[in-house]
């Protein structure tokens, strides 16, 4: 369909995949917070998420599709953004009319993508290796009777460099969402005078609280591991 090649449809796909990631991230944060509150239930939920066929073969592919869709559309849109002004201004005062976050979504987005690469290397690739290549679905290490997930998690938050990268990435995610959350409602045409203040407030709360939650949990494990 010809309409689907317009930037409005591309941006609607970005907005919908972005909002989907917003929901996913909330779920992820809730599971992570179990690692602070109750390691046993963290282990159990992790095992469920990691071995349940509906999660593994339905939700996970949707999630990966969403990330790739968002990424590919982001790159196409950014290219279109740049093409529209081949000669730049010599002197621009863009700060007078728009926020840094709104003008640099590609920078915050790519930082988040780099983090995702590291995150996959840390957690996802080893999981796939253990479960689907080695075929060990037990969720336990050899000769042990406890689930391995909590130990693995603790193990990842020992290095201060890793911690720094982790925290910084979530700062960029926060910047991405400070604009992105409310922007996606505008893109799908949902924003108007009546809903805008609520959407913006909700977006600001989410964009600060959720990344901060991830940072606090990571700091908790980092501090616990250092003695």
């Amino acid at each position, binding site marked *: 369909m*010809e309409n689907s090649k317009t930037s409005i449809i591309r941006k609607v796909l970005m907005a919908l995949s972005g909002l989907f990631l917003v929901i996913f991230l909330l779920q992820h944060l809730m599971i992570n917070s179990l690692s602070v509150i109750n390691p046993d239930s963290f282990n159990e939920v992790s095992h469920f998420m990691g071995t349940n066929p509906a999660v593994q073969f339905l939700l996970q592919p949707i999630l990966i599709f969403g990330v790739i869709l968002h990424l590919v559309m982001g790159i196409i849109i950014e290219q279109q953004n740049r093409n529209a002004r081949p000669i730049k*201004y010599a002197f621009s005062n863009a700060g007078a*009319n728009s926020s840094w976050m709104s003008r640099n979504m590609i920078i915050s987005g790519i930082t988040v993508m780099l983090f995702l690469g590291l995150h996959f290397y840390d957690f996802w690739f080893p999981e796939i290796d253990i479960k689907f290549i080695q075929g060990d679905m037990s969720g336990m290490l050899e000769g042990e009777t406890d689930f391995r997930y909590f130990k693995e998690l603790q193990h990842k938050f020992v290095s201060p460099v890793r911690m720094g990268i982790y925290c910084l990435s979530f700062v960029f995610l926060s910047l991405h969402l400070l604009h992105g959350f409310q922007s996606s409602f505008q893109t799908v045409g949902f924003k108007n005078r009546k809903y805008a203040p609520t959407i913006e407030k909700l977006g600001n709360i989410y964009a600060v609280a959720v990344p901060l939650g991830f940072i606090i949990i990571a700091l908790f494990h980092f501090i616990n591991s250092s003695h």
Partner: protein
Amino acid sequence: MSAAKKLNLTLKVWRQKNGNAKGNLETYPLADISPDSSFLEMLDILNNGLIDKGESPVVFDHDCREGICGSCSLYINGEPHGPARLVTTCQLHMRSFKDGETIYIEPFRAKAFPVIKDLMVDRSAFDRIQHAGGYISVNTSGNTQDANSIPIEKEDADEAFYSAACIGCGACVAACKNASASLFVAAKVSQYALLPQGKIEAKDRVLNMVKQAEKEGFGPCSNTGACEVECPKGISIENIARMNREFLSASITK
């Protein structure tokens, strides 16, 4: 007259012989400018001086000089129509600037607004977007119905009127980091979408106008809101949400 202190300024003006030539910023010192003069009068004074010296005057667009035609453009100190809000360049006064200030004056920059000469750009892309759907088809020969005979809710009528206030100046494009024409197109779509007379052709209108804007080379909308801040007529980005709504429902059914 007021004895307000005269301004001494340094102007950095974009000079470009024609569309194909390579342009550059030229520096012009300009003394004794009254803070009460308008920005375009200041440029007239600069041009008189250039003509006296046998140099070619700076070409810039202007017509009504009262904020209604949308001809005047200029990207002044990093903002379309300069630092003041809700004004066109012809309504901007030199009291918005300080004595000794350097003022950068560039053309509106967009792939779809090619430079004709100096500060003058070709904005006919806007006309072609209008031709793609910015009208209603009414037979005007003979017994045309009075538009006021169709009752319209006051809120809708007001909203359509605010959208219709767009003068097609292109400041929204110039301000946008993506040179997007979304605010202009959205205003033109909305002024009809809100009225019963516009509903009949609403689907084709939004589809065709949006596609024409893309064809002209205007960029996508990143919702930065820069357009709304710089628009001399205060057109709201609510219009863009409405345009997206209209576009989505039209592309599902058409």
